[in-house]
């Protein structure tokens, strides 16, 4: 139980007045981010990242991860009260949450959502506490070829398992990888793709891209759809909370199932959104009373919220242990690590114990404090949605610009943000997914470096990626995932069965 001792040490790091107050600030900002239309987890964290530039890494990551928890909680408020999912993973919560609010049971639905979110992330944090250190120490043996194979696995699983058109995923990913190449080449020091521009010399910062792609484009989409915010009021009394909590143990199977699904999909890259739908669908399938789903059943809130939070939290596991983010927001936190001068990956557990265990301890504490906070302050945050969008939209635009400028103190980045905003708007409308682009922007340089270091090591022999059992099986798995749709239909055909589209859950 070495982990427990280290965790206690993590709590010691946390329990200072400064860090606790930063935690509260982070949670409040995060809930705002989650509640406001046009601002979600990834861009909220990206915009607020500059606030942390002058802090020490531990305070910074605690505040940022609390923004993340806050955003996860906040997403549920809008889905239940306004039938508008604040986040993609809150969509499934609207199915039963909004009907409950319509029936005057908003307080129950909110309590159920917050509590099950808490349980989901608690399970995921336990997983991180006890599993991440062993994965990290295993990964210490990785050399450049192994790392490249893991990056390849991440990219391939996006292409092979994603539900979008394959060529669109490839476009998004290749574009992201190309954009990270702009600027000075880290291996040879040579300039490339700068076309003589001083501004391109610095390269394209992925945070600027994220703020544009998610922040600005989201505002454009929200304006286009002209959201009419008509919500239900809610205040949560202690009586309701206790009543929901008393009923909760009856749904332990649902909670457990959703937690497991969430953890699994959270660790798999690109699985965070799928988790909430899968949790919901499975709860429905195993229920004796299927028809009551979608009409305001409390189980229909428990299932997706638990899964969404579990996956959102579990997405941090590969980020901490391997330096590979499991979700968009985890990718931005990873970018934060690099800004603060930390090198994400397995060495983090050895070289920056305080930081890692402080972060893990903050996951426990942040979720507990967050739960109490959202339960007591819902009316306040629901009131935010009554502020006219004409006032909120320009404020979000300004916040985006501040975030983009602060990263490198460059006016050019504000223009870049605007460009990425327009690109993000068009891409979303024609179905080019943005998640692979973000992932490629974060991992691009590291993937290229590990590829070239492997090539230098092997003298240009591609067989280095099959040189031992470990790297060979990861590479093979990556290629298998890439061609998974082909393999699956091939197997079907060999069996003599007619090829049919995959079953919809």
């Amino acid at each position, binding site marked *: 139980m070495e982990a427990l001792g280290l965790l206690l040490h993590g709590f010691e790091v946390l329990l200072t007045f400064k860090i606790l107050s930063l935690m509260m600030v982070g949670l409040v900002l995060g809930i705002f981010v989650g509640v406001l239309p046009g601002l979600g987890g990834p861009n909220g964290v990206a915009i607020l990242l*500059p*606030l942390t*530039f*002058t802090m020490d890494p531990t305070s910074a990551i605690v505040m940022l991860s609390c923004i993340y928890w806050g955003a996860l909680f906040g997403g549920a408020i809008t889905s239940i009260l306004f039938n508008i999912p604040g986040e993609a993973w809150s969509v499934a919560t609207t199915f039963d949450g909004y009907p409950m609010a319509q029936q005057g049971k908003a307080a129950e639905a909110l309590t159920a959502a917050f509590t099950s979110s808490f349980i989901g992330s608690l399970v995921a944090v336990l997983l991180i506490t006890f599993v991440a250190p062993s994965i990290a120490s295993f990964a210490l043996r990785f050399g450049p070829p192994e790392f490249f194979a893991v990056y390849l696995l991440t990219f391939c699983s996006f292409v092979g398992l994603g539900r979008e*058109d394959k*060529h*669109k995923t*490839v*476009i998004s990913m*290749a*574009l992201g*990888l*190309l954009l990270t*190449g702009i600027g000075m*080449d880290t*291996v*040879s020091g*040579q*300039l*490339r*793709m700068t*076309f003589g521009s001083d501004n391109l010399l610095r390269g394209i910062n992925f945070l600027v891209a994220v703020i544009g792609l998610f922040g*600005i484009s989201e*505002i*454009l989409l929200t*304006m*286009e*759809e*002209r959201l009419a915010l008509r919500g239900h009021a809610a205040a949560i009394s202690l009586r309701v909370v206790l009543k929901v909590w008393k009923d909760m143990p009856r749904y332990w199977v649902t909670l457990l199932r959703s937690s497991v699904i969430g953890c699994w999909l959270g660790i798999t890259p690109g699985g965070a959104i799928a988790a909430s739908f899968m949790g919901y669908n499975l709860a429905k399938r195993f229920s004796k009373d299927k028809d009551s789903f979608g009409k305001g059943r409390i189980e229909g809130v428990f299932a997706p919220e638990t899964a969404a939070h579990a996956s959102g939290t579990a997405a941090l596991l590969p980020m901490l242990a391997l330096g590979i983010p499991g979700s968009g927001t985890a990718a931005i936190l990873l970018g934060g690590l690099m800004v603060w001068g930390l090198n994400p990956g397995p060495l983090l557990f050895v070289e920056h114990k305080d930081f890692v265990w402080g972060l893990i301890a903050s996951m426990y504490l942040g979720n507990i404090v967050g739960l109490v906070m959202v339960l007591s302050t819902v009316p306040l945050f629901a009131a935010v949605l009554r502020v*006219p969008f*004409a*006032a909120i*939209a*320009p*404020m979000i*635009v*300004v*916040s985006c*610009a*501040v975030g983009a*400028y*602060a990263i490198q*103190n460059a*006016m050019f980045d*504000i*223009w870049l943000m*605007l460009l990425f905003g*327009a690109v993000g*708007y*068009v*891409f979303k*409308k*024609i179905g*080019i997914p943005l998640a692979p682009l973000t992932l490629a922007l974060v991992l691009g340089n590291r993937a*290229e470096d590990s*590829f*070239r270091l492997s*090539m*230098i090591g092997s003298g*240009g022999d591609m067989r280095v990626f099959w040189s031992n059992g470990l790297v060979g099986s990861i590479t093979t798995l990556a290629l298998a995932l890439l061609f998974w749709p082909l393999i699956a239909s091939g197997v079907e055909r060999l069996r003599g069965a007619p090829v049919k589209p995959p079953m919809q859950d």
Partner: protein
Amino acid sequence: MADPAEEPRAVASTRAVEIVVSLLLLAFAALMGWDNWKSGAGWASDGPKAGYFPFYLALLLGAASLFGLVKALLSRAGADKPFVHREQLRRVMQVLVPTFLFCLLTQWLGLYVASLLLIAGFMRFVGGIAWWKSLLTSFIFAIAMFVTFDVAFDVIMPKGPIEALLGF
């Protein structure tokens, strides 16, 4: 999606936009590929040259865009699916144009003054909110941003002549 009150007049079909985007991406891939070919896409004695990795990515991007282009040209699927209605486009422009002006003004007036103008103007002209409310809100917001970023967290924003006049 379509508003029942207005006649949905599409500005462009989804298919047309897909074709244009594919062409643009193809051009971008060609430009990047050419630049990397110039910087050296082959092998040096110490491993791949600087342009090697991005050159093949440009090829990949080009191939995927070409595939998308051919697919969009052959299929009729998105032909009558509107990309954006005129009314929607007008609303999108209501944000995009002010945002563009805001970026432009930031260069000369600094971020805080530009954001004051953006928020007040947007609230007044797009939202139809009373002048005094719009001005008050934007003023409070700009001051709050200044205190948070420039004062509390030492994150320095671009400033213009008006801040200079006030001694910042």
